[in-house]
């Protein structure tokens, strides 16, 4: 489960829509909009595999988190075979509270996969980062996506991106910062798809949208390194890698064999968030 946070109008829905276009992706979405009418749910509806809306207030302020656990319970059902659940928070949500709600969610089959904070480079220093101390919301983020920097005057662009990165790092040196216009980040940073191809008999609307060639699908690919394993790995060395990943690694994942006292066992391992 991945949470997408960001101030009002920062570009959270654009990022979600970009992830939804990823070929073969089966994504469940929990959409939280601030108001009785769930506008964001309407924006993403029709492009989505499973959606659950939480309306009437910000998810982190509503009693019982507005039914977040119930929504996750529904979306985590194995019948749905989802690759990832994305919780798109209201722009008014407090990412720190939301991250805590997610971390301590008691829903089975759901595990935290990171908090993506979306930043509007144009408005950020007028709306979010306005105090001498960097905002607390940076502390919850595992990945910070700086958007709309293409709308800045060319002379200010690089400096603004650098300044946002410095402010994030001052509050949270573990967060990874990327520039992604219109939410265009590499989905491999966020989740894996079980199948690289489109389901044949499902999700015709999603498939149609993915087929659109509107010039907005492209993103800069994240860098990756891979080693093939033909032998069992030492569990201590494996855990060392997950606890202290290579510099710049946002995710480390693997399918491994480990020698036990009596036999060999297989494990899937994942570390995310740097």
């Amino acid at each position, binding site marked *: 489960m991945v949470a997408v946070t960001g101030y009002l109008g920062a570009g959270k829905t654009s990022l979600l829509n970009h992830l939804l276009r990823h070929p073969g992706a089966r994504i469940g979405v929990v959409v939280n909009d601030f108001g009785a009418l769930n506008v964001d749910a309407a924006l993403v509806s029709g492009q989505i595999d499973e959606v659950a809306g939480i309306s009437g207030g910000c998810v982190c302020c509503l009693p019982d988190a507005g039914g977040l656990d119930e929504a996750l319970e529904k979306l985590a059902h194995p019948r749905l075979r989802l690759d990832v659940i994305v919780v798109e928070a209201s722009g008014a949500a407090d990412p720190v509270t939301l991250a805590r709600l997610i971390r301590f969610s008691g829903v089975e089959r759901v*595990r*935290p*996969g990171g908090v993506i904070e979306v930043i509007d480079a144009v408005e950020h220093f007028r709306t979010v980062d306005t105090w001498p101390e960097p905002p607390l919301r940076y502390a919850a983020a*595992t990945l910070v996506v700086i958007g709309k920097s293409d709308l800045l005057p060319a002379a200010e662009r690089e400096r603004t991106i650098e300044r946002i990165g410095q402010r994030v790092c001052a509050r949270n040196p573990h967060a*990874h*910062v*990327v520039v992604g216009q219109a939410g265009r*980040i*590499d989905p*491999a*940073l966020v989740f894996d798809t079980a199948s690289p191809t489109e389901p044949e008999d499902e999700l015709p609307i999603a498939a149609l949208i993915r087929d659109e060639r509107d010039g907005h699908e492209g993103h*800069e690919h*994240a*860098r*990756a*390194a*891979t*080693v*093939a*394993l*033909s*032998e*069992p*790995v*030492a*569990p*201590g*060395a*494996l*855990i*060392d*890698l997950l*606890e202290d*990943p*290579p*510099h*710049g*690694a*946002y*995710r*480390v*994942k*693997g*399918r*491994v*064999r*480990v*020698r*036990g*006292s009596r036999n*060999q*066992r*297989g*494990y*899937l*391992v*994942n*570390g*995310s968030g*740097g």
Partner: protein
Amino acid sequence: MIHVAPLPEPPDAGELVAIGPHLDPAIAQRGLAAVAAAPADRPDAAGLRRLHRYRRLSD
């Protein structure tokens, strides 16, 4: 956030992957290769305890 889940069967061929927007692939490759090269010909009791601890936390 670390997650460890058992597989029904040990995989014939495994892999380790590191991904990141600012990853240096050569450095990361060396880090992954070091795990692949670490001696694993006999059980590593301390390592197994750490692995199982993460497995329990992942349930």
